[in-house]
């Protein structure tokens, strides 16, 4: 699969080939830094190994036979203080030259696609300009600047899709921007990079880069479908939000079994539970508040999905939902 191939990349000797301009700029800096440090490595480690081999004690030499009593050399000290200094200055200059391409700030008057990334324990909610939302799967157009507005509702997270660009933290109390322009279409995987709690390891995401026209059309259709309650947002929410702790079939994992629980289709009871979480120090674990920021249609879509799914729906609920 394309996504798998993009993951595998180059066997880990460098960040994966980037599908964005800013990510490519980071890779350029990486190769310069790794080139310089590799050269330094060869010289210094080479000298160390050479001296160790060359000046080892030979057969017939006493343990305490003195070497020449050299206490130092000021010229050498100055030399090996200034050469590293110059090397570092060179790296710094090259880096600073590259920074504007890495930051990829939108030029004045530009019209980037702004997507709000609401990070939660343990999912990503992507909010598009027309109000449509997706869970864990971001869809963006190719060859158009994208600006992510990263926020967090509970603890700190970090949005990282290595084959696109570097990561950026989402920290409660502040909004961070991450801008980039995708240069090729495809699906790219990533995950949360800032430890955020028990299911941090499965707080994954996928980014699908599609042609601009296809994106525009999808966004319009999706927005209308979500307004009409006919999108698959309910399924996305179940799989991205609920299933990570309660299991894909609601069979229970770190959270209790919830398949068939009548509370799942009781909107009045469910809304405050999802909004406030359930904190009970008497039991190991708790439920974080997971719905802050949701549009009203999302809870409806979730309940609708549960009703329509015979594995999850409580007895009798399916008919009731019609």
């Amino acid at each position, binding site marked *: 699969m394309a996504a798998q191939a993009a993951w*595998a990349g180059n066997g880990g000797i460098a960040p994966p080939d980037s599908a964005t301009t800013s990510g490519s700029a980071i890779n350029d800096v990486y190769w310069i830094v790794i080139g310089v440090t590799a050269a330094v490595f060869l010289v210094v480690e080479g000298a160390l190994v050479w001296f160790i081999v060359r000046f080892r004690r030979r057969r017939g030499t006493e*343990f305490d036979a003195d070497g020449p009593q050299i206490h130092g050399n000021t010229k050498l*000290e100055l030399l090996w203080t200034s050469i590293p200094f110059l090397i570092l200055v060179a790296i710094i200059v090259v*880096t600073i030259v590259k920074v504007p391409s890495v930051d990829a700030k939108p030029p004045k008057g530009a019209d980037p696609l702004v997507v709000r990334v609401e990070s939660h324990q343990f999912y990503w909610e992507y909010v598009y300009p027309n109000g449509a939302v997706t869970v864990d799967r971001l869809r963006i157009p190719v060859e158009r600047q994208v600006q992510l507005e990263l926020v967090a509702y509970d603890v*700190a997270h970090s949005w990282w899709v290595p084959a696109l660009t570097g990561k950026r933290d989402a*920290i409660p109390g502040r909004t961070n921007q991450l801008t980039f322009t995708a240069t090729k279409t495809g699906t790219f995987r990533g995950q949360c*990079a800032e430890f955020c709690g*028990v299911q941090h390891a499965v707080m994954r995401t996928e980014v699908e880069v599609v042609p601009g026209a296809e994106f525009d059309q999808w966004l319009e259709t999706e927005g209308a479908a979500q307004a009409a309650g006919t999108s698959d947002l309910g399924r996305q929410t179940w799989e991205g939000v609920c299933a990570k702790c309660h299991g894909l079939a609601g069979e229970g994992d770190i959270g209790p079994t919830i398949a068939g629980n009548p509370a799942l289709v009781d909107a009045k009871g469910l809304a405050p539970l999802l909004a406030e979480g359930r904190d009970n120090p008497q039991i190991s674990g708790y439920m974080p508040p997971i719905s802050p920021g949701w549009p009203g249609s999302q809870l409806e879509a979730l309940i609708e999905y549960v009703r329509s799914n015979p594995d999850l729906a409580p007895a009798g609920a399916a008919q009731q939902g019609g």
Partner: protein
Amino acid sequence: MAVRVDQPVLPTWKDGTVMRWLVSVDHKRIGILYIWSAFAFFVAGGIMALLMRLQLASANADVVTKDGFNSLFTMHGTVMVFLFAMPILAGLGNYLVPLMIGAKDMAFPRLNAFSLWLYIIGAIVLLGSFGATGGAARAGWTAYTPLSGPDYSPEVGQDLWILGLHLVGVSSLLGAINFLVTIVNMRAPGMTWTRIPLFVWAMVAQTILIVLTVPVIAAALLLLLLDRQAGTSIFLPDGGGSAVLYQHLFWFFGHPEVYILILPAFGIISEIIPVFSRKPIFGYKAIAFSSLGIAFISMIVWAHHMFTVGLGTSLNGYFMVATYLVAIPTGVKILNWTATLWRGNITFSTPMLYALGMIALFIIGGLSGIVVGNFPVDYQVHDSYYVVAHFHYTLFGGMVFGVFAGLYHWFPKMTGRMFDERLGKASFWLLFIGFNLTFIPQHMLGLMGMPRRVYTYDREGVFEVYNLLSTIGAWLMALAVLVFILNVVKSWRSGVRAGNDPWLADTLEWYATSPPPEHNFERVPYVSSHRPLRDLRIRLRGQNGG
């Protein structure tokens, strides 16, 4: 108060074999108790690492629970930094500093014992976290807020973690003050500041750093405790606090902390390389002053741990430049050690192998520091396994190899017996190979997109192979530590008796008997260079007409 000397001296409760250790205020006994305790925690932290590596040996494995894994890496980091690394250096420092400067003991022997027992109590509180309802702390050794706050880590384990670290922190602080006072006031006649051993210089720089930065983490943890228990919101954005402030305070301590750990290891290397090269250290002053330089610069680089927080390009740029400055004094040390080897008469005894291994590995850790210290590149590698590999090269490849070098080097002094060279060399090669096998693949894993602190991954192929190699390497390292323990036990019981100075070394600790008596010396030779024992040997040779 007058002392009556005509009464018979009766044994008291303090005279049992065990009690004599427990109530001792002798710096050597305190040092050895520090070393034993710290080593026990090294084994405990190592077992946690082995469990984590088992869980990560294959994709989607199920060896430990999710919460369990998160507790393991939290406690592994905390135990290794605060219960192993800092205390074992305090132990080596305790044992060596008074001997090296020709003093009878530390300046404040009772305070010294107090530091030791405070550390032990702190360690018990910290590890008590495992027995607490809800399990051990699991917000990472960095305990970032709000994750470590009352809403997301309500368990009492997190509070025990804070309290344990407070106790251990106060212990370090008192110990550091004790070292500074001792080194400033109690040096032997003639021992000027340019004649103290380089290990002691390293301890000066290290303890200054402790005094300046440990209070900051103590304050941060106290505020975190208030957020958790007293309803304040200093670090909690919901109540108007700042989560980023906690990160600043943590790393203002956290970055100097890595130099607190590495500087004494540098000092150990500076002692061992000359002895087994039969040469004076190259650039004594450059090495001594570079320790102070590193200590200073390390306090102005902290936010390179926060490049992805969104502080902006100018701040990131400043912290990158400052970080790169550290490379200069560090490079000076490595080059001076290498120059010391030049035209030497190098004997590959076990301490020397560890010292050379330390230099070889620290070069790698230092250079990967240039990579992670570059903020655009850090956008990719930050919080990934690349960072895990980088800091293990500095802290394990650097600090732990340095500590093993020191433990082997001064084993004859501490026990009066020689260790087994064959077992020593076996432990070195197992550790060296195991270490590289564990951590080289982690660089690749990070670049391939593996974040740190994940209990599972779902990728196969070369990604899984790297993880498996890393796990195999970890078990080789465990074997190396077992060989080390075997060597210590065997040699302590039946090793060949060591004389005062088995290595024909240059510093004053070798003038005392092995092990040294209480109060160390009857008298010490006048110190006229940084190699007083070599001066003495030459004088004696002259008198004997040699």
